[in-house]
């Protein structure tokens, strides 16, 4: 439903779309971006407005870095060390 989506929700969706578009050029971005968006999916604007805005800003700046002319791929370091 397009009616009733707040600007914040639209920004997040546009950012996601930009990442998916970019993931055609940058290998490995699709899964990493999806995981990260999923990680913060549960956040509610009522409680976490400023944090969501920060995450949006961070996402946009990281997108800009990934759009650089030399970027080839993205991956995660292989050793996740847990407690």
């Amino acid at each position, binding site marked *: 439903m397009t009616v009733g989506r707040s600007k914040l929700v639209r920004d997040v969706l546009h950012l996601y779309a930009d990442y998916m578009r970019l993931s055609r050029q940058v290998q490995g971005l699709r899964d990493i971006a999806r995981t990260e968006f999923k990680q913060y999916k549960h956040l509610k604007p009522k409680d976490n407005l400023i*944090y969501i805005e920060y995450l949006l800003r961070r996402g946009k700046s*990281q997108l800009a870095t990934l759009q*650089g002319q*030399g970027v080839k791929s*993205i991956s*995660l*370091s292989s050793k996740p*060390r*847990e*407690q």
Partner: protein
Amino acid sequence: MSFLSRISSRNLCRSANSIGSNVLTRSLAVQTSQTRNTDAKHTTGNRVASNYKIIDHTYDAVVVGAGGAGLRAAYGLSTAGFKTAVISKLFPTRSHTVAAQGGINAALGNMENDDWRWHMYDTVKGSDWLGDQDAIHYMAEEAPRAVVELENIGMPFSRTPDGKILQRAFGGQSYDFGRGGQARRCCCVADRTGHAMLHTLYGQSLKYNTDYFIEYFALDLFMNQDNTQCIGVIAMNLEDGSLHRFRSNNTVLATGGYGRAYFSCTSAHTCTGDGNAMATRAGLKNQDLEFVQFHPTGIYGAGCLITEGCRGEGGFLINSNGERFMERFAPVAKDLASRDVVSRAMTIEIREGRGVGKDKDHIYLQLHHLDPKLLHERLPGISETAHIFAGVDVTKQPIPVLPTVHYNMGGVPTNYKGQVIQEKNGKDVVVKGLYAAGEAACASVHGANRLGANSLLDLVVFGRACANTIASENKPGESFAELPSKAGEASIANLDQLRNANGSISTADLRLKMQKTMQNHAAVFRDGTTLKEGRDLMDGIFQEQKDLKLKDRGIIWNTDLIETLELQNLLLNAMQTIYGAEARKESRGAHAREDYPNRADEYDYTNLDKNPITNQKKKPIEEHWRKHTLSYTDPDTGKTTLSYRAVIDHTLDESRCKPVPPKPRVY
């Protein structure tokens, strides 16, 4: 369920972008109960999850460092059509080049008749015959062109009444191979030449298609299987903690010096020898690190630099008797003798009890006999510096000064083209794909001692040389193999280990220990016992790295982590410096030893009339000290090994410029 236990032990969680908002802290406290703690700001004693994002880039050329040399190399590479990346841990105009005051030497001949061969002679003599004469020939010959090029891109040089570039007198410069008196060869922009140059270069660099990675800390170099070629760099984005691997067949190191290894230095806090340490960790040897220049006039206490240009404009140094003591030590050049000569003279005066001040531990630099209008026009920066940091009015009182660590003559060894070289079986071997320029490199144009105003020249000439060499040997858009998928694992492991470090000594304390040790044991005058003592202390300090304690566990702008990485780099540099100094049993240039006060060359050059070379037997390289030190410290064990390499005594072309044979160095 460990998340919940962590929440209960945490009172308030401050976010990296905190604006003191209660809403923010409340919302974060809520979110941490549900998500993984990747942005942890406080240690709770548990290891943090470490799953770094690694972004791979490919470029034709990568420049590490965005000071004078880095920006000049990037400018040259971009104009040649190479897809270039510049990685810098600082914003380009905050690099230490901006603090350079004096000027750039070039034999333009605007004041009196000049010849670049005289400049070349002065530089060879200044280096105490440890400089490679082909590189010095190259630099002196290219100097006028380099300065005119800077002027053409808009550097606002000070002008003579005719409108030509003003050239002032500077230490160690003479006409007619030392026979023609003090030369005026230093092109300057009042006393803020470095600032003008860096801003000009930065403005120019924005015009071209270069990608800037600002506030990215370069961690390590990537080398191929047999360590003969450099294939890239790994850097960490300080802003979000992601790692970036740059694959490139051409890497230029322009990371500057390591003044911060000493307690009192004129360098910024960011001068930590990152390039030298990256080369060491890549298995390469550094050259001549024991040669550390002490600038005669750093403000007593603060360490801020008072340029040699003051002495060039007519200022002089006086001791407690009000005597202009440099006339005794350097009868011809007086206060404009080479910097190591002046530093030693000042230290001798202080040691013999003629120092000024309450503790008689410094010297005065007198400028108040000069015309105040001249001081205002030609030396505005130092007038202000002296007022702020020493509380003196230069038109009325002398400035308290002391020799302070200023420049590192040593660095990554290169040839005159800017290519990094190593020594194998007595021959110089080029490391493919790796270049170095500026203070991080050792070309070696400065040898055992650098003349003032030659450093800014070194930056532009060799920055350009690196770009030209890369352009001549490669084509833009060349394809090459990818990095191995596990490349950078060691760097990431080190980063991870530091982030979780929970030992007993903090970075700041260990750094202070190292700085005090270096200051006390490897200063202006060195002797065997103090150097040996310093060496053993440094061995201990190096091992204490394993016991570091970091409090900040985050990845976003973790300054604790960055300072620790810089400390690791400084320690590698400091070890090689003090080992090299202890091993070199002679006095040459800036390395002055009380127990070996003379130069030990292959022939005895001190009295060529009575004892000419033809009567002497040439000493083999193992028995004399006119050779470059090549040093390597194992990053894990701290074991430092030294080897030696011969000085290049021939010029590029004997018909254009004759080499300068060694002789006694008197000013």
